[in-house]
């Protein structure tokens, strides 16, 4: 049975390598690349407005995108087998660096997330975003799927180590992203639904414990999320102002550069975490639908590419990377529109900022590598 015929994107099955275009020869996937480029351009247009028409910031962001696309291109050239071999090493390095950051943080003054390499600052958690799903995919794919109880427990421990280290930094947003990437690997590996529901119930039961472990400012965010009007000038201000921005945009929006909430700076962090509210205000519901369509296209194309992969490691890794991308945008849009608590997750490819952008694009590079390095095995 050809899986492609059931692919969600409905695209035709891949052609043999010799018929592939130039892009495929340099290990790029045209539809995915198109989606990412569209998203980047749309993002820059919104950023120009969200930055208060600061061309300098737009240029800087364009440069970051260029670097990110470079990272994507670079990783696309590395065959999946190599990635697979690296997995445990990357995981080991990532966890060690997280511990190093934590120790330095304890010796320094409180929260620290990065290592100063002299020429740049490096966030180990960014490496772990990729290393954690790679490690789990490596571990699970070495055994028959679906995994048994023992393997699931080992996977959860492997996942819990970096997640807890990141949460301790404290960086709740990244911790959630890393945790979800690992859980997606497990999900895609085929753990039983009964177990999924069981884990869900366990998580609900663990909520009070999580509450106890949270920092004050994190608790405040949750409380503010539950009732933003309780503190309209303090913590609730972000959510209230972004809801006003989105709501006042209406169906067609106020027009590019004409959003009063964004241009008059009522909207906080308008060019970073809350840039989605700028889009909602200036381009309205239609603009939001356009963005969602591009996102959906990228996700479905990614899932299709994952399902076309030829070995379990590639499939699990590819699928998890795509779903993490979805978690990014869902958590961001959910928080900006007031249905999820405020956690510091940027809108992928649109928010101003570099580190997570490079990581994301590196992930897409891996996805392209997996898709374009397939061996021609006749079915």
């Amino acid at each position, binding site marked *: *049975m050809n*899986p492609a015929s*059931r692919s*969600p994107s409905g695209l035709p099955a891949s052609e043999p390598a010799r018929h592939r275009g130039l892009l495929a020869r340099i290990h790029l996937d045209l539809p995915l690349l198109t989606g990412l480029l569209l998203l980047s351009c749309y993002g820059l247009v919104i950023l120009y407005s969200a930055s208060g028409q600061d061309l300098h910031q737009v240029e800087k962001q364009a440069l970051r995108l260029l670097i990110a696309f470079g990272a994507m291109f670079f990783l696309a050239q590395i065959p999946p087998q190599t990635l697979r071999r690296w997995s445990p090493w990357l995981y080991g390095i990532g966890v060690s660096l997280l511990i190093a950051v934590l120790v330095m943080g304890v010796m320094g003054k409180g929260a620290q997330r990065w290592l100063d390499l002299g020429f740049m600052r490096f966030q180990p958690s960014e490496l772990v975003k990729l290393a954690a799903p790679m490690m789990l995919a490596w571990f699970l794919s*070495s*055994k*028959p*799927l*679906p995994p048994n109880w023992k393997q699931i427990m080992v996977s959860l421990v492997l996942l819990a180590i970096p997640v807890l280290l990141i949460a301790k930094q404290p960086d709740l947003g990244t911790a959630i992203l890393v945790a979800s990437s690992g859980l*997606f690997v497990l*999900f*895609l590996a*085929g753990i039983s639904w009964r177990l999924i529901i069981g884990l869900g119930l366990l998580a609900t039961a663990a909520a009070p414990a999580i509450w106890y472990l949270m920092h004050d400012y994190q608790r405040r965010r949750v409380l503010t999320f539950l009732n933003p009007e309780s503190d309209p000038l303090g913590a609730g201000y972000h959510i209230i*102002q972004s*809801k*006003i*921005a*989105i*709501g*006042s*945009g*209406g*169906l067609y929006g106020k027009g590019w550069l004409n959003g*009063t*909430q964004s241009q*008059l*700076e*009522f909207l906080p962090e308008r060019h970073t975490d809350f840039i989605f509210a700028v889009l*909602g205000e200036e381009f*309205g*519901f239609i603009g*939001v*639908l356009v963005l*969602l369509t591009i*996102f*959906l296209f990228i*996700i*479905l194309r990614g*899932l299709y590419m*994952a*399902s076309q992969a030829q070995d*379990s490691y590639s*499939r*699990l890794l590819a*699928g998890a990377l795509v*779903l993490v991308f*979805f978690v990014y945008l*869902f958590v961001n*849009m*959910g928080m900006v*529109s*007031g*249905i999820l608590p405020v956690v510091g997750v940027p809108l992928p490819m649109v928010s101003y900022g570099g580190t997570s952008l490079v990581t994301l694009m590196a992930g897409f590079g891996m996805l392209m590598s997996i898709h374009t390095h397939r061996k021609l095995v006749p079915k």
Partner: protein
Amino acid sequence: MSGNLEFKNYQQEGRLFTHRAITAGLFVIVLLGGIVGRMIYLQIIDHEHFTTLAQDNRVKLIPLPPTRGLIYDRQNRPLALNRPAFNLEIVPELVPDIERTLEDLDVLLGISEQDRERFHRLRRQKRHFESIPIKLDITQEEAALFAVNRHKFPGVSIKARLTRTYPMKEIMAHVVGYVGRISLKDLKTIDASNYAGTTYIGKTGVERSYENTLHGQVGMQEVEVNALGKAVRVLQETPPQPGRSLRLHVDAALQKVALDALGDVNGAVVAIDPRNGGILALASKPGYDTNPFVEGISSKAYKALQTDPNKPLYNRAVQGTYPPGSTIKPFMGLAGLELGLLDLKEKKYCPGFFQLPGHDHKYRDWKKGGHGPMDVDAAITQSCDVFFYELAHEIGIDKLQQYLKQFRFGEKTGIDLVGERKGIRPSREWKRRRYKQVWFPGETVIIGIGQGAFQATPLQLAAATAAIANGGHYHEPRLVAEVLDETTGEATPQPGKTHDIPVRNPSDWDKIRDAMVHVVEGPRGTARRIKNEHYRIAGKTGTAQVFSVAQDAEYDEETVAEKMRDHALFIAYAPVEDPQIAVAVIVENGGHGGATAAPVAKKVMDAWLLGTTPTEPEGASQ
């Protein structure tokens, strides 16, 4: 890994993954659908609500206060002006080191502790980019000194604004009044939205009674503000409508003449144009400088004014009530003629006292030994008391008070000034209300010479005299002649109401007027010293008792302390043939009306009718 001994079903694993991928894809679609649903709720269903909130966020209304109307006298001399005043202001955002700047300014111009306190208080209330005054109303020298050193003070600047100024100072204090900062009490009486942005409100005088005309209509500027509250641009503007100006009937030069004529003594002069009720002068001595009240007078200075025994804040012309004394006699005489009680041929005999039938009490005449036989003309001319004791008794209090009411004694004249007092017009009802006592006939007797409980204001006397002068047309006295629209140049006259005093026999007016002419021109007239060849005056002297003399004691001017001396009164109009001015004068503790009050009235009438205005009043040249 390759060393795996367990069996791997690759095809089954692939199928399992595809199932899971499709499930995940559907999950993604459902969750994104949730986002779409949220967007529909925010952007379409609740769109209007959020639009309102966004609008409230960004649009701010800034009131544009109107410019207050000016006040001129009848010769267009300015009485109340808007003067540009300069404040030294600081924008904290632009100042690198506030404390140092304040110290440097202190060295340069002197910053008082009070200035500092106000500055720090305002600084806490305002945003850091807003301008805050540090020194109010600096002089031109200070402004120049600052301008030279300006480069040393970034963020400090001189701001101009309008403040009220009264060039005539104490001369027009009781007429024009003053403005002051709006108090909480004022806020209750005004439409607060119209006063948004306005600093001053009329507190006394014409400034208060014409507040609505002078103030104008507030304008509004709709500005877009950013999250910091800083105005970004103007969206819409409704310009303010400036207040309209006033031209008074009052002549500042005549007012000055009246005040000067009073000299050092306390008193009041009211001059009215009998043709229309326009007030030509409304002088109350002493006056006070109204300028310090504009920015808020210091409590020490205010206390000094309040406790001054000469009561400068008190407007004697409209708030001072005095027994009218003999000046009431012409009105009594008219009542007697009207009621047919005084046949011109019939004379009453004045033995120097009057006794009610069956009573021992003697009501004395001012002239020992009496005036002998008197008719109404002679009684007014010589101011015979006995004649009017008897007449009042014959008329009776009920009819008497009705006649007096027509001349608005005991009533408000209706002048366009707040705080006018009614005085007292005694009657049975008044006595019952006030003292819960019945009326005694003896009280009627002394009402006949304007004594007893009878109290009238100089304004009431002047307005009533004007009504005699013009033959019974009582014009409500008016300070303001016209309301001027400075932008269009349009002038709207402000006439007061007029009511006619009905008489059965119009020739009765002439009889009374003739008698008043004889007061000045007759050989035995009590005001014969002001007779002159330039124009003819009709008048009546009066003396109001402050201190009652015991039944058989002598009133000796020398032995009675000045405070206890009688008030001198005089009412007059001129020229007799075509009355153009009616005057009432009271000189407190001035003794006899003919001696002290009449010359004051004469000077005022001279100035008005002969144009002998000596000098321009102080400040009028500005």
